[in-house]
């Protein structure tokens, strides 16, 4: 095969390149952009259509393999590859996109070779091909992530999925954003073959030599039966009822998109593919100009911008291969597992052998009995000298962390970068324990590390640029989005999160029900309410952070009395199984909290909007202060950090985007009202006052 490729002719269109092998199989490659993402948009599809026209006219070509060699194609996050970015917002363009997709399935056989994530428009494109071959690599998957982005699948992909799986299964998969790996795709008949990574291209080539299947692909019997049932009067009514019920349960910002997806599916079942594509284009045109979709798109762009910035910072630095993690607690274990997954050699150190045993167990279960990767553990300070970067993940006690840093600095090599995973303690206070503070920085991971896509890297004054570059390179190799912030108590994330959590605790202290507080914020768009988040963060951690802030950041900060009462009741959150929620055997609110706060039962009933504003505005204000004080250097860093790390709703863009969507004047008015009624902690940030006066925008 290699020899054949050498004798190929090569031509290139924009974003699309192809080669023809001697045995008459053309390999068409979708190229990635600067972010390593192969984007399927009108430009790409037009180029692809031109390429396919040329190949159809070439009598030497028997079939086509379509693959993406984007660098982040394999192992990238599902939404990082081949997602919908359609220029313009017109329904006409959506219609053209559908027409171009349909072109792929005509003519000579086209086989999609799925070696990485093919999601949204990428999935539509794969479905439009005659056949699909899927890699068994864990990073290879297909699915529609559009509804979560307040859109619907483009290019007739939803109709094709309905044809393949039946309307009910297709709708569930679309509304829930379900992705199909090789096993699931094979079981449902979405793909023709699943092959291990080295063989997947050869399998696709072999299928491409076969003639194109006549007409549309014949779905599995279950899907055929479902179509027959749901076309009937009763079946159709049942389907509609279930689908609309499902859409009604969707979160508010994606409700319109969910309803649109239901409408497209019902139209496809009742009136056929062409009518469905017309409806799909119309609805997509409407959804694309919605505020939610645009904010989500903006958040995605901001994330891409942050990643580009991180790539520049680590451009001249080789990604570290050997890591030492000191402390095998929640964060230490999470970092270790992420590093092992990324192929790094990790040496974990803890003073408690049981913690190391738990770490080994976690590593074992995360690999499902496969190889653990290069994990070694130690109870003493041996074997640290060859590490390129060391992450301290000890409990949040300044003295403990300083002692550990001083000890490991002596044991590590002089070029080793030392990072503390502290969530709030200023790095300068820790680095002063080391003889060479210029290589000490902060790497704030968020628990659970595997699920949070972000790491906050803290840059103290005097940090060596090479140390920053190596830490950024490590964060990127762990698959995280890296936000670099400047040293300050609480950095950005904890400082912005803490006032929100404290306000939620105060609300409970005033007699508001726990589920009312969390429900209000979840309705506003947060994935988890603040009290549930507080259980995860740790009540003692919040108390420590607020104490630190009140000492170092001024009298705006204070520790609510309710926190002391909770700590006196031995409530630390999930860590000791006692918090606002039940964690051990049952779920739901732990009603005994009210007694701990010396209240018989919740008896205050502020409006939902008041709860939302009391919790959200301190967060927005603190983000403004961080920008003003230079903790974050760019507005997009603040927004990305809040969305990815703190669960700030992405359809609102982030706290600084929210300043503009609400309007600085309105925000200032609400802050002043809260300051008068609730106290000094709501005093408007100077930057907010300035924004209101100057009508300046934080984003261009």
């Amino acid at each position, binding site marked *: 095969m290699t020899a054949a490729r050498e004798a190929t002719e090569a031509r290139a269109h924009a974003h699309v390149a192809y080669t023809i092998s001697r045995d008459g199989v053309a390999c068409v490659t979708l190229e990635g952009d600067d972010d390593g993402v192969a984007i399927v948009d009108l430009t790409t599809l037009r180029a692809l259509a031109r390429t396919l026209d040329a190949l159809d006219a070439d009598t030497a070509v028997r079939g086509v393999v379509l693959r993406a060699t984007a660098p982040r194609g394999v192992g990238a996050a599902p939404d990082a590859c081949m997602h919908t970015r359609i220029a313009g917002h017109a329904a006409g363009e959506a219609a053209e996109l559908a027409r171009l997709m349909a072109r792929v399935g005509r003519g000579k056989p086209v086989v999609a070779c799925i070696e990485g994530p093919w999601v949204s428009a990428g999935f539509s494109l794969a479905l439009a091909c005659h056949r699909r071959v899927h890699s068994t690599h864990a990073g290879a998957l297909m699915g529609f992530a559009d509804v979560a982005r307040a859109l619907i699948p483009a290019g007739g992909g939803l109709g094709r999925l309905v044809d393949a799986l039946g309307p009910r299964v297709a709708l569930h998969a679309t509304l829930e954003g379900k992705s199909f790996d090789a096993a699931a795709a094979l079981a449902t008949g979405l793909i023709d073959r699943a092959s291990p990574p080295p063989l997947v291209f050869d399998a696709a080539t072999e299928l491409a030599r076969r003639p194109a299947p006549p007409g549309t692909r014949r779905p599995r019997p279950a899907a055929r039966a479902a179509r027959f049932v749901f076309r009937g009067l009763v079946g159709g009514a049942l389907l509609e009822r279930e689908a609309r019920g499902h859409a009604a349960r969707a979160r508010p910002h994606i409700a319109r998109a969910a309803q649109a997806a239901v409408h497209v599916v019902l139209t496809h079942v009742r009136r056929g593919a062409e009518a469905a594509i017309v409806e799909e284009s119309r609805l997509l045109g409407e959804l694309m100009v919605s505020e939610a979709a645009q904010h989500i798109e903006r958040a995605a762009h901001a994330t891409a911008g942050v990643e580009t910035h991180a790539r520049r910072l680590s451009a001249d630095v080789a990604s570290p291969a*050997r890591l030492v993690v000191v402390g095998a607690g929640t964060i230490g274990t999470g970092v270790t597992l992420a590093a092992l997954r990324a192929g790094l*050699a990790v*040496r974990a150190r803890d003073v408690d*052998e049981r913690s*190391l*045993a*738990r770490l*080994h*167990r976690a590593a*074992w279960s995360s690999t499902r*009995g496969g*190889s*653990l*990767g*290069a*994990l*070694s*553990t*130690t109870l003493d300070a*041996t*074997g*640290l*000298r*060859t590490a390129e970067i060391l992450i301290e993940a000890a409990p949040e006690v300044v003295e403990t962390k300083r002692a550990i840093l001083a000890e490991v600095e002596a044991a590590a090599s002089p070029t080793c970068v030392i990072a503390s995973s502290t969530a709030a303690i200023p790095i300068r206070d820790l680095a002063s324990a080391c003889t060479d503070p210029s290589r000490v920085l902060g790497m704030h991971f968020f628990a659970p590390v595997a699920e949070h896509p972000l790491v906050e890297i803290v840059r103290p004054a005097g940090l060596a640029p090479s140390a920053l570059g190596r830490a950024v390179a490590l964060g990127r190799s762990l698959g995280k989005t890296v936000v670099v912030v400047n040293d300050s108590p609480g950095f950005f994330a904890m400082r912005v999160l803490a006032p929100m959590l404290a306000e939620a605790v105060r609300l409970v202290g005033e007699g508001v029900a726990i589920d009312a507080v969390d429900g209000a914020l979840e309705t506003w768009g947060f994935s988890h309410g603040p009290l549930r988040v507080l259980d995860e963060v740790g009540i003692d951690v919040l108390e420590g952070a607020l104490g630190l802030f009140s000492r170092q950041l001024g009298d705006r900060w204070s520790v609510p009395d309710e926190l002391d009462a909770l700590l006196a009741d031995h409530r630390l959150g999930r860590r000791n199984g006692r918090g606002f929620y039940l964690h051990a055997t049952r779920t739901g609110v732990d009603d005994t909290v009210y007694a701990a706060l010396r209240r018989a039962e919740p008896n205050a009933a502020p409006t939902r909007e008041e709860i939302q504003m009391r919790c959200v505005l301190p967060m927005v204000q603190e983000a403004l202060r961080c920008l003003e004080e230079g903790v974050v250097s760019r507005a997009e860093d603040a927004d990305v950090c809040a969305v990815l790390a703190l669960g700030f709703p992405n359809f609102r863009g982030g706290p600084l985007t929210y300043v503009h969507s609400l309007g600085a004047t309105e925000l200032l008015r609400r802050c002043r009202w809260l300051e008068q009624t609730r106290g000094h902690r709501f005093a408007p940030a100077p930057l907010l006052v300035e924004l209101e006066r100057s009508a300046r925008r934080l984003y261009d």
Partner: protein
Amino acid sequence: MSPVPRQNVVDLPARVALLGGLRTPFVQRSGALRAMGPAELLGQVLGELVARHEIAPEDVGVCALTLAPLLSDASDEEVAAVVARAGLPREVNAYAVARGSLSSLETTTLAATAVAHRDVRAALAGAAESGSQRHISVPARLSGLLREAARAGSMWGAARVLMRAQRADVRTRRAAPGARRGVDLTRAELDAFVEDARRRAREDAHEGHDVLRVFAPPSFVRPVAADDVPCPTAEADGACGLLLTLEDRARAEGRDVEAIVRGWSWTPPEPEGGASIARAATRALAGAGAGLDDVAAVEVHATTAEEIVLTTRVLESRTIARRVLGSEAPLGALSPHRVNVRGGSAALGHAPAATGARVILDAARALDGGSRPFALALVSGADGAAGAMLLEAPR
């Protein structure tokens, strides 16, 4: 079988230093280490060994290993799995050999040769035995017979081999090998030998120092450690690894050296039990111009306790040695407290492929810097072949 010359190799072009070694406990198969394959066991040991000695993984140029019960053509994937698990670079020259109980002695000689010829900065040798994965087990004697019969070339030849073996078996039953050599060994003496070995293992001051605490799935309740009951039969799970580099380099980098590898010797199977191992020992000593009086400790592994006792008596008895070894006379007296100082396989367990490295490691540990500068590591294989390695105390 790997094509390794069987003659003495004592003229190494440079002094090779044994920086240290590490092993897992050798525990009963289907026991605490049952869920760990040989690659996982050995990878963990080698990774920890490199980490403890703070060697940059890029400096390890050769990794000679044995993964039992996988054969010498152990798949490249298994070897690659050891390399990945140990955190070594993919480019390391890693390969597998298999020679039963002599395996890790052989991997050590390969690693030492690579180091001595200045091909690599550091080399790893090691082996893992996973008795739990040995789903079919054939007695060593039968296995040897079948191998010999297969080599006979014809059906008639194979039948003759088997008939000869049967006659020999009858002869052996008639007179124990010890009796034939004038060495009387009673059951009580053998029991006392084993009990003494266990006592020494318990009293060993170094116990646990070079035994890795292994966190083994699926329980992970507590690490499998040196105090787990070792398995003296050949059905154990365990791994052992050694780290070698040039003595000059180790000195320049300020590293502690356990021992210097002075040479080794291989001998083929001999009809008399204990003869091949004694011959290997005397040859290794002769190569360095040393005698048994210069040896601080002898670590010996043989298939049975009886053979160990025989070996020591052969080594120290001029009469017996002359009869068994011919002109190669013993080189001095050997008191019992210098044999298997840390207990030997009877007390520490026997994971066949990994035992050779364990014997070398214990021999090196027994060097006390006193007036006797050498230590002998002796290993006898199930087929009767034997190997010896002479170690010298670092200056």
